[in-house]
């Protein structure tokens, strides 16, 4: 309750700021919330080197998941994300992108800095793209704290849902499908029934603190 009031205040403040200070220095440090737009120029590369520019994703519903190869909670969600991805692939203009922002899972000294992520992906048969947020640019911009932590963007790049994938890490106890419900609502042209939840998981191992 307390958190949601704070978040609402933050959202209001953020909305007010975005009207007046879009081009000012320091704007790029503002944490985005539900209702805010991910800047079109934001770009991350995936582990295969392909560029993903958020401006190029306009026209698509985008599901982002802050993801990890070593967080047991993120790993416990893997089968759910794989099934979700398979379902999204049957829909038009909906994409799922995983984002690894954990400095501990990349080795910049190695010949292939992403070797561990690639090995995990192969073993776990993960087919969705895995983007690497090396400098935590997107994690910081979104205020992402945990793995997993999900964001659903509409076709204009506006954040419409953020929080946990569903309401329970144990699959058999899930009663609310927050991410799926958000995508379904956006496809119908409606507002997601729930816009914010608190995500449970491992803290993202940011570059600065690693």
């Amino acid at each position: 309750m307390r958190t949601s009031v704070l978040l609402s205040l933050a959202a209001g403040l953020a909305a007010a700021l975005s009207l007046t200070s879009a081009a000012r220095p320091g704007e790029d440090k503002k944490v985005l919330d539900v209702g805010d737009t991910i800047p079109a120029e934001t770009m991350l590369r995936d582990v295969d080197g392909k560029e993903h520019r958020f401006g190029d994703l306009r026209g698509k519903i985008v599901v982002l998941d802050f993801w990890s190869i070593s967080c047991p909670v993120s790993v416990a969600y893997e089968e759910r994300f794989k099934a979700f991805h398979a379902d999204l692939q049957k829909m038009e203009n909906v994409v799922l992108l995983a984002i690894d922002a954990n400095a501990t899972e990349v080795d910049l000294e190695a010949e292939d800095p992403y070797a561990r992520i690639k090995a995990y992906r192969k073993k776990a048969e993960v087919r969705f793209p895995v983007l690497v947020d090396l400098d935590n640019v997107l994690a910081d911009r979104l205020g992402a704290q945990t793995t997993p932590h999900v964001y659903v963007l509409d076709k204009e790049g506006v954040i419409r849902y953020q929080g946990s994938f569903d309401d329970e890490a144990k699959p058999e106890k899930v009663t609310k499908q927050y991410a799926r419900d958000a995508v379904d609502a956006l496809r119908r042209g409606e507002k997601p029934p729930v816009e914010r939840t608190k995500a449970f998981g491992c803290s993202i191992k940011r570059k600065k603190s690693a």
Partner: protein
Amino acid sequence: MSGASGPRSPRDPRESAAGRRERAPRGRALAVALALAAGACGGSAPSAPPPAPRPVELLDAAALRARVEGSAAEVVVLNFWATWCIPCLEEMPGLVAVSRELAGDGVELLAVCMDIAYDDGVLTPEGISAFAHRRGIDLPLAAFTDGTGAAVAEFDVGALPHTSVYSRGRLVGDREGQITPDELRALIRTARGG
């Protein structure tokens, strides 16, 4: 910072889960061996004998709530942690120190392990007890048996570690992320009204 994160930071989740399953019995054997060694050495040991492994209370959300409200201690501190959570393990020595300092002074600290909350198969209560003993987590131990949804809804736990301070059953302060001993002492002082 990274140097304190321990020698066994898991590289691969499968490897670490399997490793924990295998290591738990060895941990118990080690505990027994240590206890025997401590007994055999008697007073000749250079320092106090290692504390015995602690039992693990299995608590769902309602039982944990009742545990907090029914505690004889004026202040109850809940520290939510997990065996895989490096920042949690890093802050444990500080929590143990504060717990020892304030035990018998109306403060009870309970380390609530979240491993079972997301996966029943990874760790047993005995495994948690052995792990805590091996890592020197000499605190009263509990394992949260409800799911993560209940932890979020009832205790506002998001990213681990998460520390909540209660005064006579009422939440008076909490902290998400690592907490230093001084920060915890300050929260406890606030809980006592000064």
